[in-house]
């Protein structure tokens, strides 16, 4: 064997042997494949997207003013009932306001409250969970103390009293709900963080001298994110329901702002003769909440870690 051949053989047996054959497709492709074959995820996505589009383009989709009263045409039934008309597809309420228009504008409230409260709760809860889970020991004990105090608070009652003190604007509802629903974020983030931090890649980052902030945000957070999104979707649904409940009780959003909960509350008086006033916003809440939950479940399934092989 000539020396050149020896070198090539060496190269073939040693370095170059790491050949670039890939064992599996990239995680992005795997996720896309899973997403496109997950009916719950697709349904949830479609409904949520639709609701968001409606909320954004509500003024373009309807010619009515959500606050515009039209007493002569009050309590017009929806188009499918014998006395209904295409002028008011979902009919009008007790003050003659177009119900479809109010429903569309109401979605703005629901989505704002849902996203806003989940974002605030998510920020508080995730930060605490990451800190407690990563540092452990005394710091973790303090975090868990906060969680226990929070769990001991009667959430809804606190929300009621805070809103009755600060008034029922959308901003107040968002902040109050956000500050009250972070406990689940802490529990989940903390547990996952504890599992992730024992991985060698965290030790490797420590060994290259990375700061704690960098390790938490750069190494741990990406591995916790999918769980956070799942919890966020659940909390979003809860926040939407609680806002509806508060508004129904007259303690949330103040009239005449169109909120789905408020619409049910206002429709209550006509419930036996005009049941659609209650059922239409009720169905809207139900469908949106189910869609968000299915979306959350879907995200969990899609981003589930792959087996080693």
């Amino acid at each position, binding site marked *: *064997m000539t020396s050149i051949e020896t070198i*090539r053989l060496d*190269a073939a*047996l040693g370095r*170059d*042997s790491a050949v670039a*054959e890939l064992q599996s497709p990239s995680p992005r492709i795997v996720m896309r*494949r899973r997403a496109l074959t997950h009916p719950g995820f697709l349904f949830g996505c479609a409904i949520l997207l639709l609701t968001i589009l409606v909320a954004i383009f509500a003024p373009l989709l309807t010619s009515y003013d959500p606050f515009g009263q039209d007493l002569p045409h009050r309590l017009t039934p929806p188009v499918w009932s014998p006395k209904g008309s295409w002028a008011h597809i979902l009919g009008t309420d007790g003050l003659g306001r177009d119900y479809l228009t109010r429903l569309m504008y109401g979605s703005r409230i629901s989505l704002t409250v849902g996203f806003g409260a989940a974002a605030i709760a998510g920020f508080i809860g995730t930060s605490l969970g990451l800190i407690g889970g990563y540092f452990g020991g005394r710091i973790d004990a303090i975090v868990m103390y906060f969680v226990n105090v929070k769990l001991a608070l009667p959430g809804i009652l606190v929300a009621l009293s805070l809103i009755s003190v600060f008034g029922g604007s959308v901003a107040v509802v968002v902040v109050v709900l956000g500050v009250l629903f972070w406990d689940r974020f802490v529990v989940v983030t903390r547990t996952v963080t504890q599992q992730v931090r024992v991985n060698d890649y965290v030790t490797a980052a420590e060994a290259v001298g990375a700061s704690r902030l960098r390790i938490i945000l750069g190494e741990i957070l990406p591995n916790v994110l999918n769980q956070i999104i799942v919890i966020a979707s659940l909390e979003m649904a809860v926040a939407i329901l609680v806002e509806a409940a508060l508004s129904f009780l007259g303690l949330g959003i103040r009239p005449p702002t169109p909120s789905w909960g408020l619409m049910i509350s206002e429709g209550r008086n006509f419930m036996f003769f005009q049941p659609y006033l209650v059922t239409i916003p009720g169905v809207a809440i139900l469908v949106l909440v189910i869609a968000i939950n299915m979306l959350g479940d879907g995200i969990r399934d899609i981003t589930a870690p792959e087996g080693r092989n």
Partner: protein
Amino acid sequence: MLQVEGLTVEIDVPAGILHAVSDVDLHVDQGETLCIVGESGCGKTMTALALMGLLPRRARMRAERLELEGRDLVAAGRQQLAALRGDRIAMIFQDPMTSLNPVYTIGNQMEEIYLRHGKGSRKEARERAEYLLAKVGIAAPRSRREQYPHQLSGGLRQRVMIAMTLMCEPIVIIADEPTTALDVTIQAQVLHLLSDLQKEYRMALVLITHDLGVVARMADRVMVMYAGQVVETGAVEDVFAAPMHPYTKGLLDCIPVPGKTQPGAKLGAIPGMVPSLVGALEGCQFRGRCAYALPACAASPVPLRERGPGRASRCLLDSIPNAPATGPFFAGVAR
């Protein structure tokens, strides 16, 4: 004892059909040890699970012949198989921590097998459990019986696993990497135990491992698997002394052997990695990593050729040249 012909296991995956095990023949006799050796993904564990009837639900299994003590298992129903499992044929897993149930005492789990197969009364079951725990070298078996798996060390757990498989006096034991999770000194002790018990009860042992040292010391016969296929089989002395398949030779060259390989010298690594098992099989599965590959290797699947009594190899070459320096190999590298 155990006779298998044409065992095939296929798994449906998103990208197609994964050929986990392709057309494997094997047999093991009373008192004999057959080692199945290969690297991860070669199908050795799938073969074991198929023999035990424990394949995952997604997997499909076919066999031309599958006989235990002359009884046909291909025709046997699910219930008959379940009745044999743990009774006539038993399995030892790699990680005793995950194969023992953490919420029951070890005595409970051992007796449960005995009772499930209707071997005798509760009292007899307890006596047998204590007897076997003592047999596998566990001191104070009576008090150990009351313990939970987490209270035992890894070595003790594996001993308990072995005792457990012996509860119904099986005639075939399949051990899947039984000592991989153990320390070296414990490994030798557990292997000793396994081999002593095998001799005493005249059992057939199918030992699945990736460790050639274990194979050399334990096996009567060895079966080398690669990419779901048997690539070489024969008596262990013959295979180790003169491997007929380049993969077997590669494996033997890879491991540093005290007193044989020059410390610090380059080890004969096998370049590349295992091919994908998804889709139709073409040519020799090993050709991409083989230093002796010929154009013919890619043409059609290579059959397992009889190469002497009890000896077979899945290679077109009749002998392996000493210096690997053939054309197609370098052509492959240049590409």
